[in-house]
């Protein structure tokens, strides 16, 4: 079972969810052998696609489209499991989502929400993209970015996580030595 996990974090990103669940994109997922798309939709209004999804944390909606299983929910206390079973992650530019995905060693496409242009979040996505850890794009360029991911010449670098011990050592050696 090959999964795509789409996450929008604690707020909403309706354009991303609509794009990811559009016929065109679902066909591409199909073409590349994905079976299931899990979408974490946050506060977004997607009544046209998921009329039955409630605001309760545990509420999950399921449907089948273009031969793919689609599972949707708003929030979970931990997304760890969904990150773990994903073969591809498509995420908003939140740092928590980015770092959690990279630490799980997942192929990651970060999508910039152009309606939030003032948001400082992009600095991190942009930087991580420059460092070669992920691909960074917009909803309108998602399809071409997806193709880039399949390009055999593209090598995403292995993520080197941050090290909090450096902080502990700094305190011990420089502040309270």
């Amino acid at each position, binding site marked *: 079972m090959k999964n795509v996990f789409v996450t929008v974090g604690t707020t909403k990103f309706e354009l991303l969810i609509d794009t990811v669940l559009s016929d065109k994109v679902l066909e591409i997922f199909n073409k590349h052998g994905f079976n299931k798309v899990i979408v974490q939709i946050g506060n977004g209004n997607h009544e046209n696609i998921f009329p039955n999804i409630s605001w309760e944390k545990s509420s999950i909606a399921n449907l089948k489209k273009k031969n793919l299983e689609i599972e949707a929910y708003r929030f979970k206390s931990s997304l760890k499991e969904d990150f773990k079973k994903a073969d591809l992650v498509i995420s908003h530019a939140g740092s928590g989502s980015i*770092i959690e995905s990279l630490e799980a060693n997942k192929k990651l496409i970060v999508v910039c929400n152009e309606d939030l242009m003032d948001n*400082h979040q992009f600095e991190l996505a942009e930087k991580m993209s420059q460092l070669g850890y992920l691909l960074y794009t917009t909803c309108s360029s998602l399809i071409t970015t997806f193709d880039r991911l399949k390009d055999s010449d593209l090598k995403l670098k292995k993520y080197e996580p*941050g090290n909090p011990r*450096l*902080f*502990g050592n700094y*305190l011990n050696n420089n502040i*309270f030595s």
Partner: protein
Amino acid sequence: MMRVKTAVVLGSGGHTGEMVKLLSGMDLEMYRPIEFIIAETDKMSAQKIEQLRDVGKKFDYRINLIKRSRSVGQSYLTSIFTTIMAILYSIPLIYRIRPQLLLVNGPGTCIPCCIITFVLSRILCLIPECKIVYVESICRVKKLSLTGKILYSLRLADSLIVQWPELKQAYPQSVYIGQLV
């Protein structure tokens, strides 16, 4: 073993996540007890703190609630008023805690605590010396956050730590030791 009484200001969402990671890199046998200072409106932070509890080891902490100085999206004008209220609330709290280390990483809630700690400890000498350490979020690559800028320009922190070399270049007085979270 030397013990350092530590106060940690927690803010919403991402800030708490980063602070929990920073704490996980510290020797919690040395930096204890930890007095967490949390905004009343924050429901999630207390849960995240529990993640630090190592099986078998004693995790010595306490939670203190404080009024929030500025909510996300709140107008700057009303923020001045709520910040003053937060400062007044912080005074008895910091005075009672008497931390030797104040750890902050960004939410607006932390500025009143920093100001009060600095005034009580360095200016009025009403509490023993307290080091103030600020860690800027990993999200900040090119520019400091508003909190970071305020603390940097007022020189309130003993160490203002940034997580990207670009920021160290832009703010020479800051400390860069690598990516921490």
